[in-house]
């Protein structure tokens, strides 16, 4: 085939394809995912994929936050995630050599739920470890009440400090004691100290119900957080002081129980799924065609042997074997693709073989052979051009199953552990019982993405089939 013929037939094909609505829809969805896979990593660095299992990497994200956009659809407003690094500073000397350093943060609370976390992070430089600084953390409520939640000596080793006020036992008992004062005795019987979220009494109106999640009324207004350090040494100082007000909504898709940004996972998972789907289907279809055409072309006992191998391969149930192989060898993504190809070429090979057999019997092939054409020449000139269009259709149609099989392996916890995939996100959701907790924002997007991406290829394949087999045309 000459190049100009090729371009011409491509143009003809595109003309036909354009008229397939469903094919164009599939192409649009596919382009959307490709765009996501290309553009996404600009905003969500590769580190997020590599450190998906690194708990400390995600520790300053909110836990189990819903997607931000739910606030537009509900009158019950959820607080967003805030990282506040702006504060006012005042310093003064108290006594002979104790310096007081006060950082004051402001936070406007206009939401119907308390924040999920209060986290303070900073780096400290202490000249003399035997004289550590002390600190206090005080919350000033809009109603004028003042609560000292933390008061401690900063004597731990290392200079990076992270204090999660909402999981500090002292802070919890202070907050609980604060709420108790306003609570009725009947309500107090329903409350368990251990199960109380300290943020609830802190950000609720001082009235009965303050300790009950479903009865507490939010206290809206500006809160002031005063963090005070007392240094015993003139060279001591505090750097990078940051207050994190943990949100209950975050980003486009929220976060999971391990505080990971689910949209980042979705984007990086898109890359893996596209890679696996496309590479697996291209490789297995090409191998299948090679195998089928070779089988038809060699004929005789060689064909017989190849057909027996084909039969054995198609008689092995794929999923149990794949699970077995993955469980034993803990494969990387490339090995998974290899396994999928090994168990995925048979369908195409049968089609290629029967087509090649038919073509082989044609008069023009006979004629070509009579004038001395080699087998390779016949395959290249007569067989391949006729088989290739079908190959593209079956490539498109075999993508979804490759994606789903990999997702299934990942879901069982058997995928490549160095990358985040959609199946793994669902695995984590399953293992922390996200379905029973109703965390739809965790379960819905990866599966939907999987189904949509699979669908786009199914649509493209269906459109190709309609062009190739017009008899079954309906859509």
């Amino acid at each position, binding site marked *: 085939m000459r190049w100009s013929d090729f371009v011409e037939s491509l143009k003809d094909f595109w003309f036909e394809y354009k008229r397939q609505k469903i094919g164009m829809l599939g192409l649009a969805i596919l382009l959307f995912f490709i765009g996501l896979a290309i553009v996404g990593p600009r905003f969500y660095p590769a580190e997020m994929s590599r450190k998906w299992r690194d708990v400390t990497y995600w520790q300053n994200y909110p836990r189990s936050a819903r997607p931000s956009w739910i606030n537009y659809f509900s009158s019950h407003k959820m607080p967003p995630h805030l990282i506040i690094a702006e504060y006012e500073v005042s310093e003064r000397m108290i006594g002979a050599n104790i310096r007081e350093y006060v950082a004051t943060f402001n936070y406007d609370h206009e939401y119907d739920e308390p924040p999920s976390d209060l986290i303070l992070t900073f780096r400290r430089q202490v000249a003399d470890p035997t004289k550590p600084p002390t600190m206090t953390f005080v919350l000033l409520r809009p109603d004028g009440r003042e609560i000292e939640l933390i008061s401690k000596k900063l004597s731990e080793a290392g200079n990076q400090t992270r204090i999660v006020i909402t999981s500090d036992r002292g802070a919890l008992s202070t907050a609980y004691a604060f709420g108790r004062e306003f609570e009725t005795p009947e309500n107090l019987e329903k409350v368990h100290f251990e199960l109380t979220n300290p943020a609830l009494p802190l950000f609720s109106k001082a009235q009965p119900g303050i300790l009950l999640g479903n009865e507490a009324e939010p206290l809206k207004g500006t809160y002031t957080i005063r963090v005070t350090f007392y240094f015993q040494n003139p060279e001591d100082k505090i750097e990078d002081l940051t207050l994190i007000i943990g949100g209950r909504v975050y980003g486009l898709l929220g976060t999971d129980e391990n505080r990971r940004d689910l949209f980042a996972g979705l984007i990086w998972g898109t890359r893996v799924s596209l890679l696996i789907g496309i590479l697996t289907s291209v490789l297995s279809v090409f191998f299948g065609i090679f195998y089928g055409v070779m089988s038809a072309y060699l004929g005789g006992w060689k064909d017989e042997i190849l057909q027996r191998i084909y039969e054995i391969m198609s008689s092995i149930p794929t999923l*149990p074997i794949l699970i077995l192989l993955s*469980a034993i060898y803990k494969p990387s993504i490339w090995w998974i693709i290899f396994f999928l190809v090994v168990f995925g070429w048979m369908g195409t090979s049968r089609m290629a073989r029967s087509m090649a057999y038919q073509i082989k019997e044609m008069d023009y092939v006979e004629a070509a052979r009579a004038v001395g054409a080699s087998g390779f020449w016949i395959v290249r000139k007569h067989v391949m051009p006729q088989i290739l269009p079908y190959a593209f259709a079956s490539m498109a149609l075999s993508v979804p199953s490759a994606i789903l099989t990999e997702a299934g392996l990942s879901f069982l916890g058997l995928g490549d552990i160095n990358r985040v995939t959609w199946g793994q996100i669902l695995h984590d959701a399953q293992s922390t019982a996200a379905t*029973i907790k109703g965390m739809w924002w965790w379960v819905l997007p990866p599966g939907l993405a999987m189904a949509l991406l699979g669908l786009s290829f199914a649509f493209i394949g269906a459109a190709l089939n309609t062009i190739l087999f017009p008899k079954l045309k309906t859509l």
Partner: protein
Amino acid sequence: MGIGKYVIIRLINAFAVLLIALFIVSLVFSTAAEKELKAQIYEEIMAQLNANPQLQKAFAANATAREQWIETQKKLKFELYGLDKPLFERILIRVGEQLRLKFGKSHSLKSRSGSSEVKDIILEALPRTILLFTTGQIVVILIGLYLGLKAAQRAGSMLDQSLSIFALLSYSLPMWWTGMLFIILFSFYLNIFPSGGMMSVPPPEGLISKILDLLYHLTLPMFTYVFVVFGGWAYTTRNVVLSQLQEDFVMAARAKGVPENKVLYGHVLRASAPPIVTMTIGSLLGSIGGAMISEVVFNWPGMGRLYWTAVIQNDVPVLLGNTTISIILFLASLIVMDLMYMYLDPRVRIGAAAAMGE
């Protein structure tokens, strides 16, 4: 006669495939299983030593004697378990055991009656999978056949178009994920079905309430299965029937004035029977293998979940036994489908017999 010969050759062929598949599986397993077995042997020897104060006393002063004793014990056990034989022989032995369905004992799992025989464990799990997926498959076939026929009858109609779209949609829908969504929807938000398991804990008293409880737990996973699978079934039926509807004999029947219903249910359905019946039988047999991951999602204690538990516990005998059973079931369904097709389609029957005669 030709057919009988074909059947026999087909069976021999399947048996050869089974042998090779088992060989491959055993090969894969030899590494994993044996590492584990060796660790187990070592533990056994240590336990033996700890339980015997006389030996301990004798070895207290003499460390080399202790080592020697362990070595001889190890050698004995290796011989007992056949680990002293070369790899190839061990694989053959394993294939033989699997063929005779001697799966051995599980070291971490037990059946409800307390037996740790792999055979008992599998025999307990298999009916549960059949209950869920074979029943579901029957529902799928009934719905699929009905809708497929209707769609083919009115090709291009609303029903046909929406059926085709639904089939395409469900083609790429992972069943287990659909299950997770249904759990969130029906179990968490609507709270009308349990989120998993096969019975309430503790199970209710009395046979009738037990059956009702089982049905209650069965509904959601079965609904999921039917929801994901029936579209594809209906679509395939439609395609088969539609291609028959375009045949000349249909036009001839219509031209003769045969009533449309008779054309559809008499002529077309008979002609479409071979692929459809084959599909039916094949899918029924295939459904015995179940849908592994969906069982995990619904915590349904069938073959799939057993397999998964065995993977997690690294329980090689159970894994091997389960794999063997799935391969046998899979092969059986292929053979039955083949023979069924041959029985129903005279063209294939004669063709196969003729091919044999060559």
